[in-house]
């Protein structure tokens, strides 16, 4: 009952919105108002039809995009945590790397993506670079915040017990930073899907971005909307997966190290 009540409001809203959209599309309100062809405004029922009829196309291309996202995210997670540790341990590294880290976020992906395609071709590499570039920042910054959030009294206690720098990192700072790293990962995994599709959109021979590109060229709007639905499903699924892993890994009360 409680679960039903929790999901009632969002589900009801979605149903109402889809209903309105369906009516608006069926009665050609939007296409008339915008003065465009009717088939350019697919109704939810058209999209559902496309989801079913194009299922093998959507699945195979969705799989390509999912692989890009997972690989790019994995690269970003490893590199992000490694950089966070490096910056945390060394003042010199902090001063050297931090400006670059922030600078990397100011690069417009829109400009970078076509250049990467020129450099690396239509294959997997430019997609991984873009996904990793997008995911890297939230993971690194959050992990670093976590590493720095360790209670100074805890550090003193560890020193008194004979723990050196690496012991403190391993036994206290990394476990403290873990919930922070997961927060960063949740942000990263959500935006990573957008990054992958954009990279495909710019230059690719497969993937959901490529599928959308082609569908739009052929004015198959229902199919491109169906691809977007699959994309959202992938993003939601990955978000849920990260949250699930977080719950499995962080079994302690991570709101504060000590309560006095």
């Amino acid at each position: 009952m409680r679960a039903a009540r929790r999901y009632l409001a969002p589900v009801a809203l979605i149903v109402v919105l889809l209903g309105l959209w369906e009516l608006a599309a069926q009665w050609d309100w939007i296409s008339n108002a915008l003065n465009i062809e009717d088939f350019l405004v697919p109704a939810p029922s058209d999209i559902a039809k496309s989801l079913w009829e194009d299922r093998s196309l959507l699945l195979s291309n969705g799989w390509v995009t999912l692989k890009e996202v997972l690989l790019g995210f994995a690269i970003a997670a490893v590199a992000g945590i490694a950089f966070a540790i490096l910056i945390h341990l060394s003042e010199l590294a902090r001063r050297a790397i931090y400006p670059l880290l922030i600078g990397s976020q100011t690069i417009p992906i829109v400009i970078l993506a076509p250049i990467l395609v020129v450099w690396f071709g239509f294959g997997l590499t430019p997609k991984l670079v873009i996904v990793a570039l997008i995911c890297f920042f939230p993971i690194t910054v959050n992990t670093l915040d976590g590493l720095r959030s360790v209670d100074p009294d805890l550090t003193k206690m560890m020193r008194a017990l004979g723990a050196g720098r690496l012991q403190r990192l391993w036994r206290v700072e990394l476990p403290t930073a873990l919930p922070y790293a997961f927060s960063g990962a949740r942000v990263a995994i959500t935006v990573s899907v957008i990054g992958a599709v954009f990279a495909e959109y710019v230059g690719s021979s497969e993937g959901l971005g490529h599928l959308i590109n082609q569908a739009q060229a052929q004015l198959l709007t229902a199919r491109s909307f169906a691809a977007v639905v699959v994309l959202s499903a992938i993003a939601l699924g990955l978000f849920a997966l990260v949250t699930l892993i977080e719950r499995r890994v962080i079994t302690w009360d991570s709101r504060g190290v000590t309560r006095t």
Partner: protein
Amino acid sequence: MLTRLREGTPDAAREGRAVAATAEAAGAPVRIEALGHAFGELRAIERIDLEAVPGEVVGIVGPSGCGKTTLLELVAGLRPADSGGISVGGATDPAERLERCAYMPQRDLLLPWLSALDNAGLALRIAGTPRQEARGRTAESFERLGLAGFERARPGELSGGMRQRVAFLRTLMAGRPVLLLDEPFASLDAITRAEMQSWLAGVLGPDRHTVLLVTHDVEEAIYLSDRVLVLSSRPARVADRIEIAQPRAADRAASVTSPGFTALRERALRSLAEAAR
């Protein structure tokens, strides 16, 4: 509810004694001569002389903010001293002193991701003892400290008194001859604190540790110590030295209400009031 009941058991104190007796502490005297310390312009400690031999508990009371915690950090070598001499078991070098001292901070500072057993055995793990061996050695003391059954509990599941016991055992398991206890029971309620005091009295009774006990609770200091130093407000100096004839009596309630105890407490409180002036 269960945890609270366990804390009061009279066995706990007796069992604690056995643990301390088997602790590997060989004993190291602590000698402090003309110690002075300042934080920039702020003079924290004017001059403190102190001597404590193995088996002795020296209580240190003083108004809040008088530099009691700083004193312990200086002894442990966690902070370099400005002037004066500190020797722990003959060592004056801060790093060597740190190796001889086990410091128990005010807050329990248990790691929330480790079980009570792993928290208590932290020092062994840091020293490179394999996990299973560390657990085994810690578990032996665990049972006798009245913590049995809580080995796998996370700190979040323990009561304040239990957490403090785990923190004390963690300090003990470091195997250092000198214990520096910094207001170990300050965060507990009055009833639990009284229970923990008799428990600690039992643990420290026949033990060969050299103990410096910082507290703001005069009664706690007199009950647990062989000697109580009353410090003045900042900059701290020794305002009074009180020798306690019969420390750590088995019956705490009877001891703290006896005429002798009351007289000592009056003297300490008067010294404190004068020192704060």
